[in-house]
């Protein structure tokens, strides 16, 4: 059974259909990359999975449980799904470590002392040991994004969603963030990424899905999708994107 399974997911904003019947499976421990032009529906799909947007039709299953039932309390579901955003979205009035401790304290009713060791270990692991007491505006973009990843990991999520997390970074800072993803993959985290980093997707992903106009046009292992794309739309997109 897939860890995360999408069946016929439809999301509309007014007349615009942003996700148009999307089917997608992410198995436990897999890294799946969503690629496609801006506006293809990648980010919206991630927001739907995290229940930040209600879906109009279809089903989203997490560990077999339908989490898209209308009226379901979204908060405990979101606590199981970590999400990292393009613009970091750290809380600017809290230090890095306070950012990471907030949700475990509030949602899991832990004290700071309960979670401090575990969270400090995460900071140390991702090279942020000396940045824990800094405020977000004292950190570089790459550091902020790594703090945002730590903040999501502090909730011990089952699945992590990454929404173009390197798109707002200077090119020389992209590598340090992608390294974190590789480390998470190595320890078996289940991950779904929307990304424009084709090189990274080709090297690291277990599966790549090409989206256009809210539909999955083509999916497969990266070697197949990048080197022998079947669909003409995929070929056209890759011809432009990879050059």
């Amino acid at each position, binding site marked *: 059974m897939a860890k995360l399974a999408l069946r016929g997911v439809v999301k509309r904003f007014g007349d615009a259909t942003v996700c148009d019947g999307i089917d997608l499976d992410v198995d436990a421990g897999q890294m799946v990359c969503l690629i496609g032009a801006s506006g293809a529906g990648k980010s919206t799909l991630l927001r739907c999975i995290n229940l930040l947007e209600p879906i109009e039709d279809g089903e989203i299953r997490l560990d077999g449980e339908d989490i898209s039932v209308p009226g379901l309390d979204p908060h405990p579901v979101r606590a199981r799904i970590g999400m990292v955003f393009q613009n970091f979205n750290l*809380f600017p*009035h809290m230090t890095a470590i306070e950012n990471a401790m*907030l949700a475990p304290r509030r949602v899991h009713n832990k004290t700071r002392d309960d979670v401090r060791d575990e969270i400090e270990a995460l900071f140390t692991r991702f090279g942020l040991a000396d940045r824990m007491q800094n405020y977000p505006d004292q950190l570089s973009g790459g550091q902020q994004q790594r703090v945002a990843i730590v903040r999501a990991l502090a909730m011990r999520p089952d699945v992590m969603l990454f929404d173009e997390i390197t798109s707002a970074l200077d090119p020389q800072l992209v590598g340090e963030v992608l390294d974190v993803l590789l480390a998470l993959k190595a320890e078996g985290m289940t991950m779904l990424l929307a990304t424009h980093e084709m090189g990274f997707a080709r090297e690291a992903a277990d599966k790549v899905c090409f989206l256009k106009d809210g539909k999955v046009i083509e999916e497969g292992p990266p070697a197949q999708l990048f080197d022998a794309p079947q669909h003409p739309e995929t070929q056209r997109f890759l011809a432009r994107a990879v050059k």
Partner: protein
Amino acid sequence: MRGTRAAGLTRREKYDAAQRRRSLLIAATSTALVLAALIVFIPMAPGWEKVQSSFFNGAVLAKSFPKLLDAFLVNVMIFAWSAPLIALLGLAIALARDAKSPALFPLRLFGAAFTDIFRGVPVILTVYLIGFGIPGLGLPRPWNSPYIWGSLALILTYSAYVAEIFRSGIDSVHHSQRAAALSLGLSERQVMRDVVLPQAVRNVVPSQMNMLIALQKDVSLLSFIGPVEIFRQAGVFKSLLANFTPYVGAALIFLAVTIPATRYADYLMAKQSQARR
């Protein structure tokens, strides 16, 4: 050393220094001219001596000033107990107006009506209606005190304004902050308390400082329903001494408080707009 550099200054630095000297000279000259004109021409006005003796009378000022200062303590007192209550009520109204649950719809309605009414009526009218109206119910002491009902009038009026400022502060927090907090599993209430409000409050500190300054001045409106605060005290002296100088004294006391406070608010505002850049 490059060609444009001479005597340790670049030509740009020299030019800027010359420009600064020039601006300073022009500003100093024009200020001196205006001051001189005021000093020379105003006393030439036909009524000047009368105005001087009835508004700028040193002997009257010296006589009334200590008592004016005492009366100003009444202003400070009313201000001191009103301000925290305004902050609390203002925040409560702001939150009520943002309540989303349908069960809380009456609260939203109440919040909207409250701000509409108390922002729509002149402060002095609210002071009169509440300050005279409620004690008119024949309440026993101390519940007929104009201090209580006058303060309440100020609290209601200012809460309405302060609530709107808090609301604009809540709106000023980017929606991505909410999304990030929700994605971690926080409830709506926790998002508001831990993420949105702390940033919202910080964003509106300068605006709220300006409300405090306005409140400090409007405390004087309570003089119309009884409390002998500084404006009323100045009026007493005016009648007693047949001289307007006590009003000038009162104005000086207000300025001694409001000018530093205004400067501080401006400083906070400037700091904030710099941080935004």
